[in-house]
């Protein structure tokens, strides 16, 4: 207990001794964690949008006249990319078409006999599997034609891919910059106290006693930076998505407060861990060279 008291006191001293450097580190860590958080949230929202689109994505397969409908349905169900299948009779299909056409549906009466064949509404498990599924359906002899929103799927998948890559690049950049700033701050802190550290070693202070305040300093700065970043993100995110949904109501965004809180906690934990790891590495390297006998 006593040792913790001394270590905490020394950590406080370190933070106040290099207060300007500490503030610079804090601001940099906060900005980087903020960018990291926003990029991740953007990526999460794109993923959410894609999932929504995928869940609504339907491939329409029209059955050849005279083909066995139930046998065709069974064969389609066995395809691995199929999430669900719904068979529509010619009457149901015509009714649906009429409903969609509204006042222009009277035009269909001119045709006389119902021209619609049996067809299937096939839902896919993932947008990336659509093209493969369409090829499989086209290859089936019972299927006359296949209709799907091919371009939309391809574009959404491409956006998702680019967003994921951009998020990953930002993620790596933010980690690198934060790590470097924390590393340098602790290194300067250690360097400015190198004589003191040498004296402490000479009078019998343990490595843990000397190094813990430095590790705590780095961890604390990164933790505080992450807290500020999470505060900034949450205060900007909810008004932001509210505004987006007012103007673009069809967008499906991450708006569950529980998910955002969980994300914030994760970001804070990640920031603190990053600070701890960087400080630990620099302190270990410094202590190894300081304690090496001649």
């Amino acid at each position, binding site marked *: 207990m006593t040792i913790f008291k*001394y270590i905490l006191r020394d950590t406080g001293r370190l933070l106040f001794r290099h207060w300007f450097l500490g503030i610079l580190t804090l601001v940099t860590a906060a900005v980087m964690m903020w960018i990291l958080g926003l990029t991740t949230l953007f990526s999460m929202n794109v993923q959410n949008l894609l999932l929504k689109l995928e869940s609504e994505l339907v491939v329409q397969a029209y059955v050849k006249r005279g083909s066995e409908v139930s046998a065709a349905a069974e064969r389609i169900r066995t395809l691995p990319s199929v999430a669900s299948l719904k068979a529509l009779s010619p009457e149901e299909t015509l009714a649906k078409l009429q409903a969609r056409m509204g006042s222009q549906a009277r035009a269909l009466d001119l045709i006389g006999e119902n021209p619609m064949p049996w067809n299937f509404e096939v839902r896919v498990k993932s947008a990336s599997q659509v093209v493969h599924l369409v090829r499989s359906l086209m290859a089936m002899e019972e299927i006359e034609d296949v209709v799907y929103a091919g371009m939309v799927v391809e574009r959404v998948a491409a956006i998702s891919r680019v967003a994921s890559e951009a998020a990953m690049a930002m993620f790596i950049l933010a980690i690198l910059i934060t790590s470097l700033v924390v590393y340098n701050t602790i290194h300067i802190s250690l360097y400015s106290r190198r004589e003191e550290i040498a*004296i402490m070693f*000479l009078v019998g202070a343990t490595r843990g006693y000397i190094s813990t305040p430095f590790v705590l300093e780095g961890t604390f700065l990164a933790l505080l930076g992450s807290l500020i970043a999470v505060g900034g993100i949450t205060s900007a995110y909810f008004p932001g998505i509210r505004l987006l949904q007012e103007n673009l109501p069809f967008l499906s965004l991450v708006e569950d407060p529980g998910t955002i809180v969980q994300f914030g906690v994760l970001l804070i934990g990640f920031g603190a861990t990053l600070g701890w790891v960087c400080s630990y590495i620099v302190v270990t390297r410094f202590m190894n060279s300081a304690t090496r*006998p001649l």
Partner: protein
Amino acid sequence: MRIKFSGVTKIFKPDIIALRDVHLDIEKGEFVYVVGPTGSGKSTLLRMITREVLSSKGTVSVGDMNLKKMRVSDIPYYRRDVGLVAQDFKLIPHLTVYENVSFVMEAMSVPSKMVEYRANKVIEQVGLWRRRFMNPPQLSGGEQQRVAIARALANSPSLFVADEPTGNLDFRTSAEVMKILMSINAGGVTVLMTTHNQYIVNTYRQRVVELDAGKVVRDERAGGYAPDDHL
């Protein structure tokens, strides 16, 4: 604590020989001056005892410990039993006299009440009670040296190592420091001290080990700074 150097040679890279085949046996409770010209290896000898320097050949033992084979994790605990005083005092300038003395005990997790009691006691012992809340740069050289002694005494060490403790001090202050060291030795603590001060060695007669170019050239009980015929 007994100190034993057995055939110790130290070569600093690339080829600077600091000590050559040193054999030395210092009994518990002895007071030993290590004398010799600059570059003769005095400081290296002391730094081997504090385990800042390891021998290239031979062994240095303190008590029953072979310092070269000592585990890294055991070094802090060993050093707590070795009081160290350096010519440049090695004090932490932004800490007060009291804090400079107390942090040694804090590093050992000594409870704060005990730290307070012990720090005040050793500060009083070296005559700095009225200066206890001052910082080292506000003190004279002699006072700073006394702070260093108080710090070295804080853990009640069995061995006291002083590297030129009077090197930067005037005649009168040196005599004060010597009196403190003598009283520490009188309490049964082994004291090893390097010095250039002829007056001190000749006044407070103790065992003298003389080094020259890294070799022990004289080891004399109650000797002077130089053999009597050289004085």
